[in-house]
């Protein structure tokens, strides 16, 4: 419920929304990247250096709060660090593109290959994130929610086994696939706990069992139980992120016990709200490639209104934004939320 009489800090606002408690306004959040080339230039913290250097990473992350006015901050770009530490081939790219794992050259072929290297958490790329979180914690002093991110076992499997071999394995040998996911979950927990220990208030768990690739049954057969275990293992609110069309699996996702689900604009806010019911909070789902990247602040505003009108509890871009997104479109998100609250509750 929205209670405008409350006077919450940004962190309280995010944590309350994730817990289903009252908020003074819906928080604006960033479970996925909102750094842009403009912001990199502004604080002189460009990709890919900012992805691998804790100080630069924290400088860039802070702009989510200081320049964009979001209620949360998160280290970027943090979907590849653990895969780098595991030994995957990386393509670190340049300022205007996200770093990527070269999934065409996978490092493992079967369950017996899975080995977490000693010193995994001390790997340069993992340290960049945990140290960045620690710096952010000292900077924001409990006023802004800090979101960490640890990849779920399904996405880790794409990185270390390759997408195509892993999806083939899911049909050829479902029981080994499940055993692999349980083993990879240990990496999710290890890196997640390290971020909690460093000061993360919330963890985002991207785990791309998307409708663009696999059926809804896959979520039930391979992931639901593992996600429920993650909720037990990692004692902070968890936000599950899956791109693409997911409305067919949202009723199952709502049983995961996670605090929230970060959803894509391929699902309308109203159908998503109907699919999850009271089972889980929703975060999302402002369209990236069209609305944020190439449309106007007015278009952004209308999309924010649509999500809020449907009852979406936390507003955010649907996924990592294109790095050349205009800042004015990102600024339009918190502005629209404030306007919506003002129109609805203070007129």
């Amino acid at each position: 419920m929205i209670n405008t009489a409350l006077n919450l800090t940004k962190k309280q606002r995010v944590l309350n929304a994730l817990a289903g408690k009252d908020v003074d306004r819906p928080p604006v959040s960033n479970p996925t990247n909102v750094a842009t080339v403009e912001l990199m230039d502004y604080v002189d913290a460009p990709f890919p250096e900012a992805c691998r250097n804790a100080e630069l990473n924290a400088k860039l992350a802070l702009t989510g709060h200081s320049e964009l006015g979001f209620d949360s901050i998160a280290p970027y770009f943090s979907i590849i660090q653990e895969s780098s530490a595991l030994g995957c081939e990386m393509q670190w790219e340049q300022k205007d593109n996200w770093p990527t794992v070269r999934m065409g050259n996978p490092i493992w072929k079967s369950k017996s290959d899975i080995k977490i290297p000693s010193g995994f958490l001390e790997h340069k790329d993992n340290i960049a994130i945990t140290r960045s979180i620690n710096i952010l914690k000292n900077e924001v002093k409990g006023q802004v929610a800090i979101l960490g991110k640890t990849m779920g076992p399904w996405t880790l499997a794409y990185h270390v086994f390759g997408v195509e071999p892993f999806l083939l394995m899911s049909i050829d040998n479902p029981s080994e696939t499940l055993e692999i996911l349980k083993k990879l979950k240990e990496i999710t927990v290890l890196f997640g706990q390290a971020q909690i220990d460093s000061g993360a208030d919330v963890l985002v768990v991207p785990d791309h069992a998307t409708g663009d690739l696999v059926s809804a049954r896959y979520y039930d057969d391979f992931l639901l139980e593992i996600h429920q275990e993650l909720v037990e293992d990692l004692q902070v609110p968890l936000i599950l992120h899956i791109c693409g069309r997911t409305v067919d699996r949202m009723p199952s996702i709502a049983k995961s016990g996670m605090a929230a689900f970060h959803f894509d604009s391929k699902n309308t806010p109203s159908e998503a709200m109907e699919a999850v019911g009271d089972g889980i909070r929703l975060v999302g789902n402002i369209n990236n490639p069209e609305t944020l990247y190439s449309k106007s602040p007015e278009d952004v505003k209308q999309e924010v209104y649509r999500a809020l009108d449907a009852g979406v509890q936390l507003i955010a871009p649907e996924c990592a934004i294109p790095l050349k997104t205009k800042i004015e479109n990102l600024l339009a998100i918190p502005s629209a939320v404030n306007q919506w609250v003002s129109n609805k509750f203070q007129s």
Partner: protein
Amino acid sequence: MIKHDGLKEEFKYVTKPDEQEHIAGLFASGDMLMQEIAYSLITGQNIEVGSLVKKALENDYSANIVLDDGLIAGMAIVGVKFRDNIIFVPEVLISARAMKAGMEHIEPILSAAGVKPIGTVIMGTVKGDLHDIGKNLCIMMLRGGGFLVHDLGVDTKPDDFIDAVMEHDAAIVGMSALLTTTMPNMGTTIEAFEEAGMREEVKIMVGGAPVTQEFADEMGADAYGDNAVDCVQKAKELVITEN
């Protein structure tokens, strides 16, 4: 006429009247061996498809008949099921693997006979993007649909597309992107074709999870494919336009 019991069940997934007519036509001969190949392909039995294709060729079926009435006919049902979200990528991958097992016996024969493809397509994931599963599915469906496809892989620079078009005298270029950061590289590649004075010589189609018709239009592409089945359809339409 479909006689194979398993295939009859699979055919129930084809619900659009025009597609029912088209796909039923592919099985019009009523040949049980071809229907067995199609069914094995739909259900992803690669070893079975390989041995059935080999058996058919040993029994004097022509390579073209096995390709059209067995493999392509089966893949037509796979395509419909994929488009209609009855099956997803893993199920298509096992059918693709089965198709490949059959093609290993057929391709050498077609190649030796000098059978001409219906068109030549250059395919690649755009610069900065390493995702290839959607592109690979499109390539598999295009090859099954009778196209000669040259795969440039991932992270493809605009100049590499241009060089490949010149080298292979291709009429169609297909570009894929999964990332919103790399989608604009489709436009960059189209501009490169313009700058090279080759835009009129080539039809360009685009696709990928975040790509939309609106985006394709903005970039100046000639066609947008929503999925691998649509990709083949669009490629065929572009060939007709070209001719």
